[in-house]
C-alpha cells in the first residue's frame, strides 16, 4: 500500500489540510451534545440562570447573606458588590431592569474576571442557599424546632417580633462563627454540584424577587444557545463540505496520476514485460484497480481519518463529563469490536470463497455457451444443467450463509446501542441522585457514547476494506516498479544513409526472462534486400520469436542483430522501428475507420499510398464493396470485420509505412490459399526490393521464398530453397509431406 506514496506525494499538503478540517468538524460535532446538555441543564432545569452569582441583590438579602459567611468571605463579597443608592447616577438604568425595586437601594455586581467569579460563586451560592433555607424554616415552625435543636438553640425562645435572622444578626461574632462552621460542615456532605444547583435556584429566586422576568431570561438563554448550536453546525457543515471537496479532488487526482503512471509505464514496456503480467491483467490494473484506489482514497480521507479523531475526541469529552461512567464506554467498545470481528471472522473466508464460486458459475455457463453445438450434438443438456445446478447450489448456500450471518449484525448493533443508552440512564440516575452529575451531562454522555460507537464501527470496517484495497495498491505498484527491459542506448548512433535493410543475425541466442532454457540458440543468417526469408517449424520452434527480435520487442541474450552493419541496440528504438513494417500474428485494429487504421502506419500518407497499400494487401475489393469505403467504421479490436479482412488491413497498414524491411509474423494464416497466393504475388511486384520476412506454418506460403530457414527447438536445422531442403532436411520434408501430396511438392 505504501509503495504508491511516491506517486501521490504531491497531494500530501491537501490531505494535511483535510485532516485539519476534520479536526474542526470533529470538534464541532462533539460540541453539539455539549450545547444540548446546556440547553437542558441551564435552559430548562435552571431556568436560564447560568450561575449562582446574581447580577444584583436586594440590600436585605445582601445583609442577611453576609451573616453566614466568614469575615474573609465577607470581605470578598463586599469587594465584588457595590451599593447603589437611589440618588446615585445610573440608578434609573439599573432600576429599569428590576421592576420590583420600588426605589430602594441595591447591591450591583461589579465587573469581575473569570478567576474572581469562580472564587466568589460558591461563597455567594452557599450564602444564598443558607439564607433561603432559613427563610423556609421560618415559615415552618416544626421543622425549625427540629433544626434549632441540632444547632443548639431553641427557636421558640426567640424574642417576639424578631425573626431568626434578626437574632442571628445580633449574635456575638464568636457564637456566629461556631454556627457558620456547623453550616459549612453540613454543606460539605451535599457536594459542590448540588450546592451550585441549589445556589442557582436561590439566585433565580432573588432575581425574581427583584422583578426580573424569568421567562424572558430563560427563552433568551435557550435562543442564544440554540443560535450557537446552529453556528457550530454551519461550521461543521462547511468543514465537511470542504473535506468532501478536497477528498474528491485528491481521490480523482490521485486516480488520474496513477492511471497515467501505469499507462506511460506500460507504453515503455517491451513484450517480455507485457507477457509477464498478461495484457488482461495490465488492463485490469490500469482500470479497475485504479478505480478502487480512487474509492479508497475518498474513504480514507473522509472516514478513516475522521473516525479516530471523533472517537478519541468523544472519549475525552465523555470522560470529562462523567469519568465514573467511562467503564460503560469501555464495555461497549469491547462488545462492539468482538461482535464485528466475530461475525467477520466467520464470514470473511466465505466472502472470498463466494468470488471463486461466482467465477465457477460463470465458467460453467461460458463452457456451456461455447460448447453449445457439442453439448447438443451429444445430447448432454441435462448433464450441463446438473453441472450448473451444482455450481449454483454451491454459490447459493454460501451466499445464504454469509447473508444470514450478516443479517444478524444490524439488529445486534441496534440492540447494543440501545442497551448502552439504558445502562447509561440507570447508572447515571444513581450518580445524579448522589449529585455527582446532572441530567444534561448524562444526556451528553449518551451522545458521546454514540459517537464513539460509530467511530469504532467505522474503524473496524476499515480493517475489512483496507486489506482488499491493499491488494489493488500492490497490483498497481507491481507494474510501476518494473523497469522496462528494452532501454534506449546512452549514446545512440544512426543508420548510415542510404538505408539498405540488410539484416544480419550473428550467433543470436534468446531466452525469455525467468526461463531456464534458450528459446533460440546460436542463430546465424543474413537477409538481404530484395530477398524473401521465410521461417518454418513446428509450434514452439521459435520461428515467431526470431522475427520479433528485429523490431526489438525483445533483446537478444547473446550475439547481435545488425542492420546495415549497425547493432540494433545502438540505434534509437523509434529510428529502428520506422524502417520496419510489421504485421503481427494476430492483428489488432483500432477504433476508427479503415482509413485511420491504415494511416496508423504513416499519418502523412497520401491517398494514393493508402490505395496502393490496400491493393497489394488484397483489401481493395472488400473496402470498395463496403458502402462507406475507406470511411467504414472499425470497432475496437476490429471485431466487426472478418479475421481474413482484419489480417489484410493489418498488412495494408504495414505497407503504408513504406518501410524497407517487412515482417509478416504468421500473418497469412487467416487467409485462404487463393488470397494468400495473390497477396504474395503483389508483394513481390510492389515491394520487391525490400527485405521481407515471412513466418508461416504453411509450406505453400513459403515454398517460393529465396531463403527458407527451418527451425526445430530453437535451432536452425535447415537453410535453403524449397528444392534444396526437400533433399537435405528431414524436418522440412516431414512438414511438407504432412501438408501436400507428392505431386504438389514436385
Amino acid at each position, binding site marked *: 500500500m505504501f509503495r504508491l506514496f511516491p506517486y501521490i506525494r504531491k497531494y500530501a499538503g491537501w490531505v494535511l489540510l483535510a485532516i485539519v478540517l476534520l479536526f474542526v468538524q470533529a470538534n464541532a460535532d462533539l460540541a453539539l451534545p455539549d450545547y444540548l446538555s446546556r440547553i437542558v441543564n441551564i435552559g430548562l432545569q435552571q431556568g436560564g440562570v447560568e450561575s449562582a452569582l446574581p447580577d444584583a441583590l436586594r440590600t436585605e438579602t445582601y445583609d442577611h447573606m453576609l451573616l453566614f459567611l466568614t469575615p474573609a468571605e465577607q470581605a470578598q463579597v463586599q469587594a465584588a458588590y457595590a451599593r447603589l443608592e437611589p440618588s446615585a447616577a445610573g440608578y434609573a438604568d439599573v432600576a429599569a431592569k428590576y421592576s420590583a425595586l420600588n426605589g430602594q437601594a441595591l447591591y450591583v455586581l461589579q465587573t469581575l474576571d473569570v478567576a474572581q467569579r469562580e472564587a466568589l460563586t460558591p461563597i455567594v451560592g452557599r450564602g444564598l442557599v443558607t439564607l433561603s433555607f432559613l427563610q423556609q424554616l421560618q415559615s415552618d415552625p416544626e421543622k425549625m424546632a427540629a433544626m434549632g435543636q441540632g444547632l443548639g438553640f431553641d427557636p421558640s425562645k426567640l424574642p417576639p417580633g424578631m425573626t431568626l435572622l434578626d437574632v442571628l444578626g445580633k449574635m456575638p461574632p464568636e457564637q456566629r462563627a461556631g454556627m457558620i462552621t456547623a453550616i459549612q460542615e453540613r454543606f460539605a456532605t451535599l457536594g459542590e454540584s448540588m450546592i451550585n444547583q441549589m445556589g442557582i435556584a436561590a439566585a433565580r429566586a432573588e432575581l425574581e424577587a427583584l422583578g426580573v422576568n424569568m421567562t424572558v431570561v430563560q427563552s433568551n438563554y435557550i435562543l442564544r444557545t*440554540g443560535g450557537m448550536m446552529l453556528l457550530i453546525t454551519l461550521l461543521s457543515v462547511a468543514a465537511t463540505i470542504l473535506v468532501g471537496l478536497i477528498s474528491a479532488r485528491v481521490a480523482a487526482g490521485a486516480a488520474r496520476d496513477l492511471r497515467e503512471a501505469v*499507462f506511460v509505464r506500460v507504453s515503455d514496456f517491451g513484450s517480455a514485460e507485457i507477457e509477464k503480467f498478461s495484457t488482461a491483467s495490465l488492463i485490469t490494473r490500469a482500470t479497475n484497480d485504479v478505480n478502487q484506489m480512487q474509492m479508497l482514497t475518498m474513504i480514507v480521507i473522509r472516514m478513516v481519518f475522521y473516525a479516530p479523531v471523533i472517537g478519541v475526541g468523544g472519549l475525552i469529552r465523555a470522560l470529562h463529563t462523567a469519568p465514573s461512567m467511562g467503564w460503560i464506554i469501555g464495555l461497549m467498545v469491547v462488545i462492539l469490536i468482538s461482535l464485528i470481528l466475530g461475525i467477520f471472522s466467520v464470514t470473511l473466508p466465505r466472502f472470498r470463497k463466494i468470488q471463486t464460486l461466482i467465477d465457477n458459475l460463470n465458467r460453467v455457463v461460458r463452457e456451456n455457451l461455447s460448447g453449445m453445438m457439442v453439448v447438443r450434438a451429444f445430447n448432454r443438456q441435462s448433464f450441463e444443467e446438473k453441472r450448473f445446478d451444482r455450481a449454483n447450489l454451491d454459490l447459493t448456500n454460501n451466499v445464504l450463509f454469509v447473508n444470514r450471518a450478516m443479517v444478524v449484525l*444490524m439488529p445486534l448493533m441496534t440492540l447494543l446501542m440501545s442497551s448502552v443508552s439504558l445502562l447509561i440512564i440507570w447508572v447515571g440516575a444513581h450518580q445524579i441522585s448522589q449529585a455527582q452529575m446532572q441530567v444534561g451531562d448524562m444526556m451528553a454522555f449518551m451522545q458521546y457514547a454514540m459517537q464513539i460507537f460509530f467511530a469504532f464501527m467505522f474503524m473496524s470496517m476499515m480493517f475489512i476494506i483496507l486489506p482488499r484495497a491493499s491488494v489493488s495498491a500492490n497490483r498497481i505498484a507491481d507494474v510501476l516498479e518494473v523497469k522496462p527491459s528494452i532501454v534506449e542506448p546512452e549514446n545512440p548512433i544512426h543508420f548510415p544513409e542510404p538505408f539498405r535493410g540488410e539484416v544480419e543475425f550473428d550467433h543470436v541466442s534468446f531466452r525469455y526472462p525467468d526461463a531456464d532454457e534458450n528459446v533460440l540458440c546460436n542463430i546465424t543468417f543474413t537477409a538481404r534486400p530484395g530477398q524473401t526469408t521465410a521461417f518454418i517449424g513446428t509450434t514452439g520452434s521459435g520461428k515467431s520469436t526470431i522475427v520479433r527480435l528485429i523490431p526489438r520487442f525483445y533483446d537478444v541474450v547473446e550475439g547481435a542483430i545488425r542492420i546495415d552493419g549497425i547493432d540494433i541496440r545502438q540505434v534509437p528504438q523509434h529510428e529502428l522501428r520506422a524502417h520496419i513494417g510489421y504485421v503481427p500474428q494476430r492483428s489488432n485494429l483500432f477504433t476508427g475507420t479503415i482509413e485511420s487504421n491504415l494511416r496508423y502506419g504513416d499519418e502523412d500518407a497520401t491517398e494514393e499510398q493508402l490505395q496502393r497499400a490496400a491493393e497489394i494487401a488484397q483489401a481493395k475489393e472488400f473496402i470498395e464493396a463496403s458502402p462507406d469505403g475507406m470511411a467504414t467504421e472499425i470497432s475496437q479490436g476490429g471485431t466487426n470485420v472478418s479475421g481474413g479482412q482484419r489480417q489484410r488491413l493489418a498488412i495494408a497498414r504495414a505497407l503504408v509505412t513504406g518501410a524497407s524491411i517487412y515482417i509478416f509474423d504468421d500473418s497469412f494464416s487467416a487467409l485462404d490459399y487463393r488470397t494468400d497466393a495473390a497477396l504474395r504475388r503483389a508483394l513481390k511486384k510492389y515491394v520487391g526490393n525490400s527485405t521481407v520476412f515471412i513466418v508461416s*506454418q504453411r509450406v505453400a506460403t513459403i515454398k517460393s521464398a529465396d531463403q527458407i530457414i527451418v527451425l526445430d527447438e530453437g535451432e536452425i536445422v535447415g537453410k535453403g530453397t524449397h528444392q534444396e531442403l526437400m533433399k537435405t532436411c528431414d524436418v522440412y520434408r516431414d512438414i511438407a509431406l504432412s501438408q501436400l501430396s507428392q505431386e504438389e511438392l514436385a
Partner: protein
Amino acid sequence: MSNTPASKPVGNGNRPSNMAVGRAGGPGPGFGRGGPMGMMKGEKARDFKGTMRKLIGYLGAYRWVTALVILLSVASTVFSIFGPKILGQATTKLFEGVMGQIAGTGTGIDFAAIGQILLLALGLYVVSALLAYVQGWIMTGVSVDITYRLRRDIAEKINRMPLRYFDGTNHGEILSRITNDVDTVNQTLSQSLSQIITSVTTVLGVLVMMLTISWQMTLVALLIVPISLFIVQFIVKHSQRYFRQQQDYLGHVNGHIEEMFAGHVEVKAFNGEARSVKKFQGLNDTLYGSAWKSQFLSGIMMPMMNFVGNLGYVGMVVLGASLAVRNLITVGDIQAFIQYVRSFTQPITQLANISNVLQQTAAAAERVFEFLGEADEPAETDTPVEVGRVHGAVEFRNVRFGYTPDKIVIKNFSAQVQPGKRVAIVGPTGAGKTTLVKLLMRFYDVNEGAILVDGHDIRSLRRADLRHQFGMVLQDTWLFNGTILDNIRYGREDATEEDAIAAARAAHADHFVRSLPGGYQMVLNEETSNISAGQKQLLTIARAFLVNPPMLILDEATSSVDTHTELLIQEAMRRLMQGRTSFIIAHRLSTIRDADWILVVNEGDIVEQGTHEQLLANNGFYANLYNSQFVRVEE
C-alpha cells in the same frame, strides 16, 4: 501472446468486483451499491409495471412467507419506535426526582419506577432485534432461493433456445444476466424490500409518536421533510449528471487503455507511443474533471442532510424548552422527540432514493425476464419416427435456408449421399461451410425443402435421436473442465472405463494420455491449456469413437499442430471415417481429393458439387480455387 484481445476481462471483471464490494458492505451499514448514497446510473426499465408484476409473480410462491416478513418488519419497527418514548419517561422521572431534590421538596429519585421503565425498554429492544433478525433470516432465505431459481431457469433456458439466438448475442451479455442482473434483483429483494417496509413503518410510526408528544413540535419537525426532499432531489439531479459523465469518460479512458494495451505490439511497431499517451492524457484529464465533481456532489448529501437535521434539532429544543417552561411538555419528552426527529430523516432519505433502486431493479429484472421469454427451439414432433441405428443415407431435397428470413443463403440445394461415403465441404474462409453441418444436426431448420436420413425427414425425428446418429469432431475442440476420462465419456455416460480407453486407443490418444500426470484421471484446467491443441483434437476424436455413430461431421483443423501429432490426427480421422457417412469441412488438399463427393461453398450457398476430377474439368469456382492455392508465385 502479448496481443491477445482482452476486451472481456475488463467488461466482465468490472461488475463482479463491484458486486463483491456491494456484498461486503451490503447488509451492514455504510457502503451500499453504486457509490455513495446509492447513487447509480439512471437506468430505466422499458416496462416498469409489467416487470414489477412479473417479479412479484415470482414472489407469489412465497406469498405467506412474504406476508410474515412484512408483519415482522412492521412489528420490529413499531417496537423500536416505542423505545425513545419509554426512555423519555425514564428521563422525566429522573428529572422530576432531581428537581425535587434541589427544591428540597420531593422524595428524591424513584429508582424502582426508573428500573421498571428501563427493563420495559430493554424488553422492547430485545424483542425488536429478535423480530428484525427473524425477518432478515427469512427474507434472506427467500431472496437467495429466488436467485437460485432465476439462475437455474436461465441455465435451463439456454439449452432450450435455438442456436440462432446466440448468433446475435455475445456470451458476456448472457453471463452478465446470470450473475449481475440476478444479483441486483437479489439485493433488492433481500434489502430494499424490507427497507421500504421499515422506512414506511418508521415514518408513520414516528409521526404518530411525535404527535402524541406535541403537535406543535411535530409541525416543526415536518418542516424538515420538504427541505430534505428538496436537497436530496437537487443534489441527486446535479450529481447524476456528473455521475453519468464520469461513467462515460471512464468508459472512454478504459476503452483506450484496453485498446492500447491489447495493441501494444502495433503501438510499438508503428512508433505510436507518443500519440497514444497524448490521447490518453486528454481523456484522463477530462475524466478527472467530471470524476471529482461527481464524487464531491454525491458526498455533499450527507453533510447537507446533517445540517437540516441539526436545524430541526435546534428548532425542536428551542420550541420544546419554551413548551416545557409552560409545563406543556416534559424534559423526557423533548429528549424522546429529538431522538424521533433523528430517526425521521434517515428513512426519508432512503425513501427518496428508493425509486432509483426500484428502477434499476426493474431494468435488471426486465433483462432477465426478456431472456426467459425468448422463443424456444421449434417444438419436437408429436409423432416421432423411431429409427434405431440408421444406415447413413442422407438426402438434401431442394433445401432453402437463411439465418434470417430476409437473407437466404442456400437457395436451392439438392444432393444424395450413399451410406459410408465421404463428402468434403470446401470453400474460401468465411464462405459458410459450417451451415450445412448445422442444418444436418438440426441446430437450424431449413426454410423450405427437407433433409432426409434413411428416407426420413429429420424433422420427424426427435432431436436427441437425430443427433445421436452423428459423431462430431470440430476444429474448435471443446472440452470441459473435468477429467480426461469424463471428457471422452461425454458422448456416452454409461460407457465403462475400458470402453473409453479402447476409444482413446483407436484415436491414438491412449499413448499421450498415459504419459500425462494422472493419466485418464488428469483434470483439464479451465482454459484446457494443460494439453496441446493436437492432443485436444485427439481427445475429441476419441469422444466420437466412443459414441460409435453411423454418421460423422469432421472439421479439419487449420491451427498449428506439431508434425507428429498432425500425422496421428490424420490417421485417427481416417480410421474413424471407415464405414460411416462423413461430412468433412476440408482444408487439406489430400482430404478433398480422397472424398467421394465435394460440395463447393461460396457466400453461404453451394455453388458446385461433384468429384475432384469433374469439378476441375468444369473449370469453375473450384478449379479457380484449386489453381490459385497451389500454383507457384510467378517470379
